């Protein structure tokens, strides 16, 4: 168990405390009911609080790379790494070492991908409508939802292609405190 953890520590190339990794490995192990070292979508859906989350399926999808049905511990950690809080000393880190997974840009990219259903790096009106429908259920009519989607695209779209690209997405959210909203703090 410990050699696997050490490898993961090295692979991720940023400091995570030993106890945090141990805790997450223990969590990974308890979710892995099939005990085959990898999680499937069913393993995630067994978490009741996630099953009742309107965007639960989109979040689960974010863990699985394109076309795959299993995620191992490294992949699990990689996705969770987006949610590490941004520490002050990391803000001044040398940019040549590659942007850390929990940077503001990468957090925004994670959220962007929740909207971008077909992974074509654009949020079309259709995709926005589908995600909105997931969030509101049956409580809002099609027309109202359609007008909400149109208004959102109108406000964000700067190059007139009726869809939102990642840079347009970033521009719309430039005033939002992304670091705080998309971070999970460990207690120990």
């Amino acid at each position: 168990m410990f050699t696997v953890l050490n490898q993961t520590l090295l692979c991720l190339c940023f400091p995570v405390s030993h106890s945090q990794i141990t805790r997450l490995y223990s969590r990974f192990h308890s979710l892995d009911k099939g005990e085959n070292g990898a999680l499937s979508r069913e393993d995630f859906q067994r978490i009741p609080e996630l099953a009742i989350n309107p965007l639960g399926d989109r979040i689960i999808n974010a863990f699985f790379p394109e076309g795959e049905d299993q995620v191992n511990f490294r992949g699990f950690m990689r996705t969770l790494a987006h949610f590490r809080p941004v520490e002050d000393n990391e803000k001044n880190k040398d940019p040549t070492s590659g942007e850390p997974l929990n940077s503001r840009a990468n957090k925004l990219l994670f959220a962007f991908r929740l909207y971008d259903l077909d992974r074509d790096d654009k949020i079309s009106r259709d995709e926005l409508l589908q995600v909105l429908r997931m969030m509101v259920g049956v409580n809002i009519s099609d027309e109202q939802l359609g007008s909400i989607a149109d208004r959102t695209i109108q406000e964000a779209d700067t190059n007139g292609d009726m869809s939102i690209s990642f840079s347009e997405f970033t521009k719309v959210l430039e005033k939002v405190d992304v670091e705080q909203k998309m971070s999970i703090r460990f207690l120990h």
Partner: protein
Amino acid sequence: MPMKAVFQRRLQKLKHIRGVQQPVFSLICMLLGISFTVWFTLLLVFIIVPAIFGVSFGIRRVYMKSLIKLFEWATLRMERGAKEKNQHLYKPYSNGIIAKEPVSLEQEIQEMRRGSAEPEFDMSDIFYFCRRGVESIVDDEVTKRFTAEELESWNLLTRSNYNFHHISTRLTALWGMGVLIRYGFLLPLRVTLAFTGVGLLVVLTSIVGLFPNGRMKNYLSDKVHLMCYRICVRALTAIITYHDSENKPKNGGICVANHTSPIDVIILASDGCYAMVGQVHGGLMGVIQRAMVKACPHIWFERSEVKDRHLVAKRLSDHVADESKLPILIFPEGTCINNTSVMMFKKGSFEIGCTVYPVAIKYDPRFGDAFWNSSKFGMVNYLLHMMSSWAIVCSVWYLPPMSRMEGEDAVQFANRVKAAIARKGGLADLLWDGGLKRGKVKEVFKEEQQKLYSKVLVGSSEDRSRS
């Protein structure tokens, strides 16, 4: 001819051997006989007689105190050992590993909208759902209730240890001795007692069943049940502290308690007399059930009857209406939870409309984990675990009786009782259904979340149309 000679020679050799070993053989027999007699006399004097009269020598409490000192020493040694080797000791925390702010959906979204001119929908709304979702993946309130609680200090049982690698010879020797004592001495003793207790229960209740119905029969039945349960308590080396015994359940009421293991029944029934409720089983359980019901009326349901809610409710109300019958013992969670929380109470027993006597049971996990993880272990495996732990230590609190108030429906009443039990026992009070151990969560909860969010969206558009 030569065959016969060979045979005869062999017979003579045997007789010679037996001749030499004869006195040794009889000596062994005598020794075994004496030790069995001594063993059973000790058992009788120290365990069975006190069980009959409900007194205690206090041996178990001394045992418990010495165990505590031992565990503390063991943990110190492990911490010191880990520090010397410069390793980090894994300390489990059952109270949650991440900081979760109890902010509701509306609050969070209002916060995000502050500063901007109140748009109807903001693309950043997704952050709330996203973060909550990932938080629940890292640590959620429900799934951890269905596995054994993690301990903060080691109790010399490998089954509860995550740090076990060789730290010091002394510690390993202690652990080894622990194994010897637990499996070589305690386990056989406990198994003997368990068989005695169960055997006596079956035999004596059948005998009491022969008496005509009346006060004498009830009196004898109470005594017999109490005695046998007390023997079973000693069979598990259960050290139980009862609090607030003035609130003990009375006839014509229902006793509800949180459920951690099948042992809960033995723990409660050794201090008071209850009518049990359950499904009819086959095998040994069936024999015990049939014997028990001869002495006093318990409520056993056939498998087919369990589905019929009206029938169940009717039988329970009929029993409760009869003042001469014992209080019913029910576990409304419906399944075993790991004793860190109390989950949703099924409303069936709260609809009957009689006095409810809540009881909180809290086990001390240091001496042996009582939780039955039925998806991992079968019953026999579980009992083996129980009987080879150090001891079962628990506290029982009898809470003051409660009844349904005006204008309160069964669900609200159930939640009120649950909250009282959780508060007294120091357990987390959860609204989640214990049935989530095996089943999926209902869609209606997701729809509630969606409705909440829609209100935030539509609500803000109403404001806009007004301004």
